[in-house]
């Protein structure tokens, strides 16, 4: 089976997607800051916010002709008012969430083209559509991912590569583990479908986008739960 690169693969939604892909028989290449040894797929250490690190981690894939997809799940957040957010945190969120997505797309795109086509799935958040207070930097970084993906989708369309974004509401992972339950529920209540999504719900959309049936869907931001 073809290879799939998954960023943020050591935990959370990235790990969930990577495990599901591995179960389906794909060669999964997971990237994370520290390559956890317990993963049931190949892990490589990579700081996605560092272009050189991404380039090194994926150098052997560059001329590959058997890559199906890139799933950019790496992400960090810092729920805080902008006026109290350290500059270093602002920079780190933009580096990982926005630049990391761009660097990984740049590194994997040649292999997808050589493979005759493929899929890129980037992750955003409901915080963009709802403009959630306390998440301005996080929302800005993910809004960047959405704008980037829409334009990049057009650049890749001639090569049979689709580029889409999934923007879920809150899903129980470490990313939101410290957010109070009532705050999570308040966001869920603002969704079109006021039910908290599960990792499986997210995987169902990823799986659809990666499938052959997803070939006509590109440049879209899919709001899981509706926003």
């Amino acid at each position: 089976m073809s290879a799939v690169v998954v960023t943020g693969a050591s935990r959370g939604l990235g790990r969930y997607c990577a495990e599901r892909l591995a179960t389906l028989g794909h060669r999964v290449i997971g990237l994370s800051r520290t390559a956890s040894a317990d993963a049931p797929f190949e892990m490589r250490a990579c700081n996605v916010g560092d272009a050189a690190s991404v380039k090194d981690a994926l150098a052997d894939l560059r001329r590959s002709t058997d890559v199906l997809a890139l799933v950019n799940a790496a992400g960090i957040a810092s729920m805080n008012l902008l006026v109290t957010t350290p500059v270093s945190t602002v920079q780190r969120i933009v580096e990982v969430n926005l630049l990391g997505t761009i660097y990984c797309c740049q590194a994997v795109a040649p292999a997808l083209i050589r493979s005759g086509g493929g899929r890129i799935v980037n992750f955003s958040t409901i915080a963009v559509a709802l403009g959630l207070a306390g998440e301005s930097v996080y929302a800005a970084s993910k809004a960047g991912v959405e704008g980037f993906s829409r334009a990049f989708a057009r650049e890749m369309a001639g090569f049979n590569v689709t580029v889409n974004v999934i923007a879920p509401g809150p899903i129980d992972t470490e990313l939101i583990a410290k957010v109070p339950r009532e705050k999570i529920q308040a966001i869920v209540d603002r969704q079109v479908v006021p039910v908290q999504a599960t990792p499986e719900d997210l995987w169902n959309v990823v799986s659809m986008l990666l499938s052959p049936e997803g070939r006509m869907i590109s440049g879209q931001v899919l709001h899981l739960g509706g926003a």
Partner: protein
Amino acid sequence: MSVELKEITDFLCRELASITGRPVESFGEHSALIGARTEVASRGFVELLLATEDFASERLGTAFDWASDAAMSEARSHFRTVGSLARHLLDLSNRATL
């Protein structure tokens, strides 16, 4: 490994002919690759880069980085013309064999 500028230029012209469907004789060292007078659309340009990456690795024994800082400048980019790209590749090859 001894590679001459002409071999690289000929390779690039052949690739351009294959990509565009035009005669190889219609391309030369002055054929523009970027800018208003470019000989190829963006899709064809990417195809040329892929082929050039393979050529650089297999024939020149060097890595060809599409996204270097120098590539961004239309005035001094090595993507300006077939000739400038050929000279850049030859330079990469020479450095790789030092």
